[in-house]
């Protein structure tokens, strides 16, 4: 408890213990998840089955791994829309590396390094050339998807038999490794964001970049690092994608970036920067994943699913903003 409190410094109270109003955001998300469970359990056949719960976890991992890094980026007042194409591009890169006989661990490492380098290009454009991060990552979004499609002709790049990759798709005690990796990274990112100079500097930059600079924080370096980390995390998603599909796939992860941003925003992180939490994003990822899963099980027309999803996302954020506003005005009074 004490560790957690000191960490969330600005938002927790030492004297009164857990304060509901300070965690209004997480609480209301938790309620939303419970509501979704109740609704889908009573309406969708097989929603509560073990297999479906595992599916939810696996789907959550796809969004979650990228969403941790995206949370930091959005807290810093930036945005990254290149996630989907980055995942697909790295899956293609990894497949080619394996085809060429590069040892699997080396191929993994190379994929992650390439992801980080590509991300840092966007970061450098933002940090040193003042290109808005939306534009820099939009460029990356288009170029990566295009490159991957161009070199593969939009066909899957098969990797043949690979024990390591197979192991990555084999459940441990019924839990898919992707979900475990997601949770491990969640712990790491939650820790970094609260307990390290880097993490706190991200909050400071998003809260007031000018003040952060004048305090001696290396604003530019941190911005580059953030996008490099996002690239590396997308690369890890790309590796998991290859393990799941058994091939590199240039058309995969279509629209993932919007699921990621939606999860972060539903999780209560402010798009204007300076405010947000990893726990919120974890809950946001669950909300987004549950909606997707439930709507499929209900057999709703896939086109109409998108409409429902859009509505639910906007309503969730709207309700969250209202709840926070109410609790803040109560606090003042």
């Amino acid at each position, binding site marked *: 408890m004490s560790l957690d409190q*000191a960490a969330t*410094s*600005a938002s927790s109270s030492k004297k009164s213990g857990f304060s509901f109003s300070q965690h209004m955001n997480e609480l209301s998300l938790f309620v939303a998840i419970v509501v979704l469970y109740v609704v889908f359990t009573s309406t969708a056949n097989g929603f509560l089955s073990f297999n479906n719960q595992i599916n939810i976890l696996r789907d959550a991992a796809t969004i979650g791994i990228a969403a941790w890094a995206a949370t930091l980026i959005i807290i810093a007042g930036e945005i990254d829309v290149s996630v989907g194409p980055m995942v697909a591009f790295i899956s293609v890169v990894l497949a080619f590396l394996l085809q060429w006989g590069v040892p699997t661990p080396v191929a993994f490492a190379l994929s992650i390094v390439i992801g980080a380098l590509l991300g840092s290009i966007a970061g450098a454009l933002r940090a040193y050339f003042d290109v808005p991060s939306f534009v820099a990552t939009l460029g990356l979004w288009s170029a990566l998807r295009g490159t991957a499609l161009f070199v593969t002709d939009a066909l899957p790049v098969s990797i043949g038999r690979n024990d390591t990759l197979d192991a990555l798709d084999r459940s441990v005690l019924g839990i898919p490794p992707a979900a475990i990796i997601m949770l491990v990274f969640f712990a790491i990112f939650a820790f970094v964001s609260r*307990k*390290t100079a880097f993490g706190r500097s991200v909050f400071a930059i998003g809260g007031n970049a000018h*003040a952060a600079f004048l305090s001696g924080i290396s604003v530019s370096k941190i911005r580059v690092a953030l996008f490099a980390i996002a690239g590396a995390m997308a690369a890890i998603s790309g590796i998991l994608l290859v393990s799941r599909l058994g091939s590199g796939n240039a058309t995969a992860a279509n629209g993932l970036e919007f699921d990621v941003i939606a999860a972060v925003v539903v999780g209560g992180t402010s798009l204007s920067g300076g405010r947000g939490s990893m726990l919120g994003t974890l809950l946001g990822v669950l909300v987004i994943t549950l909606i997707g899963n439930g709507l499929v099980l209900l057999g709703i027309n896939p086109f109409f699913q998108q409409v429902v999803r859009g509505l639910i996302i906007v309503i969730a954020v709207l309700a969250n903003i209202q709840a926070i506003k109410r609790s803040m005005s109560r606090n003042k009074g």
Partner: protein
Amino acid sequence: MTQTSLAPNLAHRPIASIKGCTRRYPGVLALDNATFQVAGGEVRALLGKNGAGKSTLIRMLTGAEIPDSGTVEVDGEELLHAGSGRAQDAFDKGVRVVYQELSLVPGMTLAENLFLGRWPRKGGVIQYAEMEAQACEAMGRLGLERAPNTLVASLSPAERQLLEIARVLLGKPKLVILDEPTSSLAAAEAEKVMAAVTRIASEGIAVIYVSHRMNEIRQIAHSATVMRDGRIIDTVDVKGADTREIVRLMLGSEGSQAAALENRSQEKTLLEVRNLALAPKLSSVSFHLKAGEVLGIAGLLGAGRTELLQAIMGVRRQDQGEVLVDGKSVRPGHYKRMLSRGFGYTPESRKEEGIVPLLGVDENTLATNFSGVSKSGVLSAKMMAEATRKVIERLHVKTARTDTPIGTLSGGNQQKIVIGRWVYANSRVLLLDEPTRGVDVEAKAQIYAIIRQLAAEGRSVIFVSSEIEELPLVCDRVLVLRDGTLGEEFKSPNIDQDALMAACIAGH
């Protein structure tokens, strides 16, 4: 500027008059039985130090404030509304204030900005030809010769100021109030604005001109009204009165002599600045700073005080000149390197550049050196609380907890933390830009004490202030920044407020 236009045209009737107005805020008498009148065709300078009541007087005229007692008349009619309609009433009667830089859209053209939101249109389509013709006429009236389709982004600061004035003139005002319109301008640029002001007055409009630059006032104003402590002290003929006389009126007789400060300056020179130039504000600035010394820099708003500090710190790169630390020349434009040399800087605008409002007092303090409160790269909650508590106690910061979001603290306490972060970082030279702005009286006194205490420990402080009366309370030595260079030097205990103010406002 023609000499003939300087004589007030007494044939004009008063445009605005304030009679026996009093306005009281909690704890302050902002306006004390003030009576004031300004006639059409007249340029009236309004002088007074910060808090003298100038803004309140102006807000009376614009209807933004309602007097507790007394009346305000514009164009022969009393402002009667008691609510929000009052400002509209004053506006309808022709009172206008020219705001600085605030209301222009840089990406739109001069003509579009001039008519912003009220573009001449037919069926929703903007009539560009008509609009630009009108713009040409309006701008020509003020002596601004620019194509109406010029982007505002490419205008000089003076031209933008003229555009603001032109916009105000479109409403056919009777009284135009300008609040320090030249403070952000270099001398040559200011001339253009002053010429425009003279033209406006020659059309029969009354002008109130708030400024402290005596050369400007002498050039364009017919008379000057001096305020102090909420009262109108006197209205003098600027031609007759000399600067010393006006300063005496502004500061009053009390001119409290500061208690002698214990001078702890050592022989060692920590910082030396040689012929530093940064267009358009600074032409050649040279000075040195000794260990343990508190050096004050006095100067009017817009004299280039902030630019000087930023050039020294490497936030801006100077055009010319040298900065030496411990006798060694430093490369310009490297802020972080100045920090590692033991320098610390607190910016003038606390909200915009000083604090991260959502983060705690602790993180706002410790951001200068997170590694000082980390164990193997991990922030230690215990060390953070301890280090923050030290700073809080030393600087008498009032906060419930060490992790209270700094945005919820009072301005004075925020400022103490902004200074405190450099105390925590153990800086040996602190550059403080207007550290007492927007801070209550008690916090001000505490900040003075903190600065003296830092000096006693052998640290050096550069203290920039536009409040003349506080400089003798803190500084071992004061230099006056005016016309891009440092002029007069005053040494404690002989820092005379009157002489200091006179040096600040004097024109060459």
